[in-house]
């Protein structure tokens, strides 16, 4: 299947290039960039040095089966109609088409989250991938919500690495400011709260901290159950929900150094790890979820959704298991 990546010089765009290359059924036609058109891809993404790729300018976009859009909010909305003339399928990573919005061509965008919407994806030609922290929180909370374990609002404490805000430099991403930061930059009112409500059916009160890592998102969700619960009740709900989902691992060990989901082990992978603990009195459930914001939270989620949409093995191109030590 011929594919192109628009916004290929960005961080999620670079991940798409990597994943497409590893994918047995996808062939890259173009890596599109305005600013780097004509330059080697390796100047921007040194990991892809050996592939010998060159960026193409947007004006020269060639016809493909699928176009991935890895563009900032607003730019996707702007370019979508033009891309749709050249690509049968569009997978968009931006927020622009997330709430079930329609394509310029009239098709409704399906939500690129196979764990919740596996039934709606087969055949889809417009796919919109949810936000990275939202994906973590939704996959942590949706099973509990469905199982009736959530009473009232949920506190979602989210931590994000610096790649979460993309490749564009700025004062707050300057290394000397960011390198050791625990910057609570969004203590309240994050827009992912709405996505979480829409997909997990819970009201999330979110606080986001920029932490000293490049990749990775982790959410710690504090849930009040309607009545006291035990840890194993919650674990069972998670296990049952995700038994057959290739990319959700329930991680809640009672031995070893690493017991709950930690994003450090997920860099480069499409996994989301989910685990939990419960207060001694059963009065609070703590659900922890972690993922790589650029993979499961963006590019990988897009490829996985395309796999499901086109009837390919769900994990095609997404086999990398991550590293330890990390």
């Amino acid at each position, binding site marked *: 299947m011929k594919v192109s990546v628009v916004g290929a010089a960005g961080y999620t765009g670079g991940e798409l290039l990597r994943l497409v290359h590893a994918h047995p059924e996808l062939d890259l036609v173009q890596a599109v960039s305005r600013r780097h058109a*004509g*330059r*080697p891809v*390796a*100047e921007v993404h040194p990991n892809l*040095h050996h592939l*010998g790729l*060159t960026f193409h300018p947007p004006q020269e976009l060639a016809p493909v089966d699928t176009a991935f859009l890895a563009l900032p909010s607003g730019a996707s909305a702007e370019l979508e109609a033009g891309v749709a003339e050249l690509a049968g399928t569009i997978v968009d990573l931006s927020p622009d088409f997330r709430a079930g919005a329609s394509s310029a061509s009239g098709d409704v965008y399906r939500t690129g989250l196979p764990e919740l919407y596996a039934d709606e994806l087969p055949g889809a030609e417009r796919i919109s991938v949810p936000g990275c922290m939202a994906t973590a929180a939704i996959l942590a909370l949706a099973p509990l919500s469905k199982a009736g374990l959530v009473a009232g609002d949920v506190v979602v404490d989210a931590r994000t690495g610096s790649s979460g805000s993309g490749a564009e430099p700025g004062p707050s991403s300057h290394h000397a400011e960011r390198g050791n930061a625990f910057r609570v930059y969004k203590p309240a009112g994050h827009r992912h709260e709405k996505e979480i409500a829409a997909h997990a059916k819970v009201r999330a009160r979110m606080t986001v901290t920029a932490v000293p890592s490049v990749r990775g998102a982790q959410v710690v969700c504090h849930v009040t159950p309607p009545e006291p619960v035990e840890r194993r009740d919650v674990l069972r709900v998670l296990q049952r929900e995700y038994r057959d989902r290739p990319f959700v691992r329930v991680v809640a060990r009672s031995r070893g150094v690493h017991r709950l989901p930690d994003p450090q082990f997920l860099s480069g992978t499409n996994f989301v790890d989910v685990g939990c603990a419960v207060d001694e009195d059963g009065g609070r459930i703590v659900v922890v979820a972690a993922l790589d914001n650029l993979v499961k939270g963006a590019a990988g989620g897009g490829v996985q959704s395309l796999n499901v949409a086109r009837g390919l093995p769900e994990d095609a191109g997404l086999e990398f298991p991550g590293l330890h030590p990390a």
Partner: protein
Amino acid sequence: MTVATTVQCPQCGGAVDVSDELMVAEIVICQHCSSELEVVTTDPVVLALAPEVEEDWGE
């Protein structure tokens, strides 16, 4: 892409793929060292290092 030939980068000796529709004065970029190479002749293909603007890539 119609890749016809591979020539050596005059800067690093790396293999540079060149199309057979190449024209004199066109700029080709070496994938290995990012050098900008100017096409001097096309038959045979001869590349020369294009004048480079030193970027500030400092610390």
